[in-house]
């Protein structure tokens, strides 16, 4: 029985959850306007939209976190007023937020029963068994006795899901659940969601990723600019038309690859090692990137990618090996020397590392510039105004504080600075993470343009779509080593997945 057949069979009676004419504004900014949403029993329903389209707000309203300014919510056909998430849970509506709400020092089981009004002053003796059996039922493997602090992000997400199932929710919202997961974890999450839906419960998947919608959802509601623009069965649609609905125009996310053959060796890292006491070691990394080439560094987060990037950018000093940029040895010479040699770095942590969040756009554009002792503000501001226009940053002006910008505009400011300095080597980490489709399109186009102009680019990412969409060559990083190297054309995805999981041994 296919997913759509299943939902049709279960469709009798009232929908599980309805919202009618929902409206919500925050200090004058409209987040939801006249939103209608209908969720059937047993369906996996994707809520698709760009960042800021209002999908998370809708989820928060429908689970009691926010109260709507207008409109009504019906649960199983009866109007309800949800004052708090607790009210939501009482009506069996639950949400797994993008940022988890877990107590790290507590065990899995303790987290699961946390906040449950049915629990007495002492935990039940059957607690662990109960949590374990709940997990088994949905193939959610979690050890109830493990401490949350010791769990990976994927495991923590499972704890959040078990928590909701323990509260016996009929409707489970998940806000951008795949943002923190590796490809195998995503596949297993989708299996779990299907198992939940098969019991007649409903799942709402809040996302901006088209591939996920097509892979797992029965139905999709598309939001744009605080309104619902369409609600269709996934079998009646395709990614291209969904993207058009979501963005309001045609978008081009087709893979881009280098046209010309690669040129000279612009970035050379030889036998790079890092053996800090409190951080991931990097062991014997050799990496050559040629002009006009993008090399994707794939891998699960925390396998030394950050350390590698920071060594290349001169922020960390390698314990052995050397780095050449344009033939200049910059090993251990610091970030300024790396820049002077022609290297630009777009870190994954944009707000906080790449940019100083409390300073203005103009100040941030000057962050890495060689400045005179006494700086004139006027020239910096006019330069900033020009950059804002060139990179399409939506801001009130060069004095706008960077923290106040949206995620996509933050990345535009960072790219504006790093790409306009004329760098021939770029190290970019997760450049499209958290961005919406227009932002992703913009970043990919920009990086592609630089490759065509002859830049050598190291693209570090956990997101294989991103790597396949841009890279010419792929290396996989695992436990501080490069364990696999392959060209995109001859790449075997299974082998890549195995390498990311550490199943390929690159030798000593």
């Amino acid at each position, binding site marked *: 029985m296919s997913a759509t057949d299943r939902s049709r069979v279960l469709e009798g009676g009232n929908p599980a959850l309805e919202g009618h004419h929902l409206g919500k504004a*925050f200090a004058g900014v409209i987040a939801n306007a006249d939103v209608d949403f209908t969720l059937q029993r047993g369906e996996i329903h994707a809520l698709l939209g760009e960042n800021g389209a209002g999908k998370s707000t809708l989820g928060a309203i429908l689970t009691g976190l926010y109260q709507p300014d207008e409109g009504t919510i019906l649960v199983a056909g009866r109007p309800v007023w949800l004052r708090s998430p607790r009210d939501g849970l009482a009506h069996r509506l639950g949400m797994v937020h993008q940022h988890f709400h877990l107590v790290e020092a507590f065990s899995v089981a303790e987290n699961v029963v946390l906040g449950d009004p049915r629990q007495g002053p002492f935990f039940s003796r059957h607690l662990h068994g109960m949590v374990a059996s709940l997990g088994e039922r949905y193939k959610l493997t979690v050890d109830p006795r493990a401490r949350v602090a010791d769990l990976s992000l994927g495991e923590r997400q499972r704890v959040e899901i078990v928590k909701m199932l323990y509260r016996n929710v009929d409707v489970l919202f998940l806000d951008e659940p795949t943002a923190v997961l590796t490809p195998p974890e995503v596949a297993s999450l989708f299996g779990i969601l299907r198992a939940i839906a098969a019991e007649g419960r409903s799942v709402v998947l809040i996302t901006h990723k088209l591939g996920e919608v097509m892979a797992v959802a029965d139905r999709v509601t598309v939001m744009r600019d605080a309104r619902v623009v369409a609600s269709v069965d996934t079998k009646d649609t395709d990614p291209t038309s969904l993207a058009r609905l979501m963005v309001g125009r045609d978008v081009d996310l087709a893979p881009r690859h280098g046209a010309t053959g690669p040129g000279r060796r612009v970035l050379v890292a030889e036998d790079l090692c890092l053996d800090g006491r409190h951080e991931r070691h990097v062991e014997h990394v050799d990496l050559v990137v040629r002009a006009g080439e993008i090399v994707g560094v794939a891998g699960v987060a925390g396998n030394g990618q950050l350390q590698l990037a920071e060594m290349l*950018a001169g922020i960390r000093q390698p314990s052995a090996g050397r780095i050449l940029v344009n033939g200049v040895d910059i090993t251990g010479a610091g970030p300024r020397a790396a820049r002077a040699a022609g290297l630009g770095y777009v870190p994954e942590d944009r707000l906080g590392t*790449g940019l*100083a969040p409390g300073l203005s756009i103009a100040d941030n554009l000057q962050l890495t510039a060689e400045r*005179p002792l*006494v700086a004139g503000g006027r020239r910096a501001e006019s330069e900033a105004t020009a950059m804002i226009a060139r990179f399409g940053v939506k801001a009130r002006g060069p004095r706008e504080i960077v923290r106040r910008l949206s995620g996509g505009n933050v990345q535009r400011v960072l790219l504006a600075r790093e790409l306009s300095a004329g760098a021939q080597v770029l190290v970019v980490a997760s450049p499209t993470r958290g961005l919406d489709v227009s932002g992703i399109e913009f970043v990919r186009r920009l990086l592609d343009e630089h490759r065509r102009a002859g830049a050598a680019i190291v693209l570090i990412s956990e997101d294989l779509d991103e790597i396949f969409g841009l890279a010419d060559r792929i290396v996989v990083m695992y436990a501080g080593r490069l364990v696999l190297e392959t060209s995109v054309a001859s790449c075997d995805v299974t082998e890549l997945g195995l390498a990311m999981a550490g199943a390929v041994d690159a030798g000593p």
Partner: protein
Amino acid sequence: MRLDLERRAAQPPHLYVSVPLVAVGAALAFGALFLWANGFDPVLIYVEMARASFATRYGIEDSLISATPLIFTGLAAAMAFRFRLYNVGAEGQLIAGAICCAGVALAIGEALPGALGVAVILAAGLVGGAVWAAVPAVARARFGTSEIITTLLLNYVAVLLARYLIFGSKSMWRDPLATNFPQGRALPRMSGLPELGGTQIHLGLLIGIACALLMFALVRWTRPGFDARVFGDSPAAARYAGINVAGVVLCLLLLSGGIAGLAGASEVSGRAHRLDPAGLAVGFGYTGIIVAALARYHPLGVVPIAIFVGALSNAGTTLQSLPGGAVPSAIGTVLQGAILICVLASEIHVTYRLRWRPAALLSQ
């Protein structure tokens, strides 16, 4: 009906002034309650305080004299706290500056001509404060030791050192002629800061204001100031940009200590004219933190706030001499505390506003 906090869509600049003003009003109302409970007429007392601080010539003079050390210590705190370096040691650095300043003044005697002599002893104060801050500064820059603990503890050392120099030893700072009760040796006449226009207000006030302008310009327009702003906002971004983070920490803490040392030098050479441990250790350093916080760590904001706080503490003292009497001078301190709490608590209203949620929606 229910009250909700709601984020403001925009933050008009006038809020940065109007919100604290309302908060000061609230603090005065709280103080009024306190006065009323003690059987005083709050209106009468507030009018009297305002008159004593700002309406008479001596009142204004006293307010400005009290404000002078607070401008320095306020600046010292502002230049550290603004960049998330919590130097709470201005008290000790002030005393170290005073000891250094008095020592140099006594040592050079009448040897240097007026202006040069004054410059040298002020520089001595600056160095004294910076030296006192040097240990915490190096520890923080090199090993990441919390400067809160180290600067705080050194305050006690400085206070005890000053007491030892006057009460516990036959040091050069002690007046050999004072046999009954030990006191500091009077500084040579040449090394006194000149007083302004027949008042007792001394040059320290103008130096303090000049310092504030200098600090403002330093932060706003220079490269080291820019580096400090980046560091204060995000140390990770500073490292990313290749800024020497340890150097920034070191410079800021030394600068902060040096300015606090100037407070001591200004007090010694402008007001007391001798090393007077009891008169120095009255909490200028800690009050400076309050001044800086009220000024939102803005160097130019420190000056008016210091004058306001100085006037407030003066007014407290004048109240004691009111006819009918028995108004505790502590009322000044009570008001200071109330104002600080109210202003700091009110900060949320710059970014949030209160909104009444209509009952109709709740009962739906």
